[in-house]
């Protein structure tokens, strides 16, 4: 039997989805993740996966994720990511990874000026990663979104690199899989909902797969990500 995935969830002042992430990880791995405080300087020994959960770290002061990206734990997280360690940033966690320079681009205020809180379909763009291997390429999944600053923005050269290298993880689409247009909830360039780093061990996404793991709350399409990570 392979060694079970050891996961850690980093909690910042203002994080609020850490419990949801912990539940999804426990369901997939059979074990509760370690909860790590932002002011700690080290991750638990043997950590395979670090998750930065959603929320409003530091009240979104300055820019979303900007203060958290300079927290004490981030040196350990950066070292983990540079070693090839799996790193997942969801919603505010995605904003933090961009602010920390672990992912390219920046999440700007939604183009339509509204906080969006709704179910959202996504198209799986790359299913060859530990995060998405339980999905099929092109599969349409239904998850939740809840954000005011999810408008993914990047310079043209950076965008070209992401597209060329298959680093777009998910795109916003409608239930039939049609990408962009009205199905793009926040104005993200190329309807990008999530991106990988160059080594595909760091993923950031605005949607919340951790909230779609129980049929009683609308679906289980989010399970695939955590099961893929645990596999």
């Amino acid at each position, binding site marked *: 039997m392979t060694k079970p995935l050891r996961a850690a969830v980093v909690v910042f002042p203002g994080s609020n989805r850490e419990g949801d992430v912990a539940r999804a990880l426990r369901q997939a791995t059979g074990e509760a993740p370690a909860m790590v405080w932002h002011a700690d300087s080290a991750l638990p020994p043997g950590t395979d996966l670090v998750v930065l959960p959603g929320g409003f770290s530091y009240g979104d002061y*300055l*820019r979303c994720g*900007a203060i958290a990206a*300079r927290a004490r734990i981030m040196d350990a997280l950066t070292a983990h990511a540079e070693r090839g360690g799996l790193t997942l940033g969801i919603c505010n966690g995605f904003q933090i990874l961009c*602010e920390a320079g672990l992912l390219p*681009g*920046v999440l*700007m*205020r*939604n*183009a*339509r*000026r509204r906080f969006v809180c709704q179910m959202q379909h996504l198209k799986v763009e790359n299913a060859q990663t530990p995060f998405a291997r339980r999905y099929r390429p092109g599969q349409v999944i239904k998850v939740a979104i809840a954000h005011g600053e999810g*408008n993914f*923005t*990047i*310079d043209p050269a950076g965008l070209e690199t992401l597209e060329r290298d298959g680093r777009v993880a998910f795109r916003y689409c409608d239930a039939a899989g049609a990408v962009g247009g009205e199905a793009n909830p926040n*104005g993200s360039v190329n309807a990008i909902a999530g991106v990988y780093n160059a080594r595909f061990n760091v993923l950031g996404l605005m949607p919340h797969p951790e909230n779609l793991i129980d049929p009683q709350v609308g679906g289980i399409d989010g399970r695939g990500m955590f099961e893929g990570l645990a596999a």
Partner: protein
Amino acid sequence: MKARVTVTLKSGVLDPQGKAIEGALKSLGVDGVAKVRQGKVFDIELDAADRPAAERKLSEACEKLLANTIVEDYAVDYD
């Protein structure tokens, strides 16, 4: 030494907040408002031996935290 750092969105970057403020000014009947872009101002007091030292510190502060230079520009004015 006192300095004021102004952070603004680069031209071409969408500014929905500026747009909303622009719309509100128009609806208030404030004439002649063609365009609004929202930015941030930081008033900073710092210990620095001289102006070049202050410039180095503030440039570091802007690059490391105050501005996200992917989408923002910054300018520093000294008292």
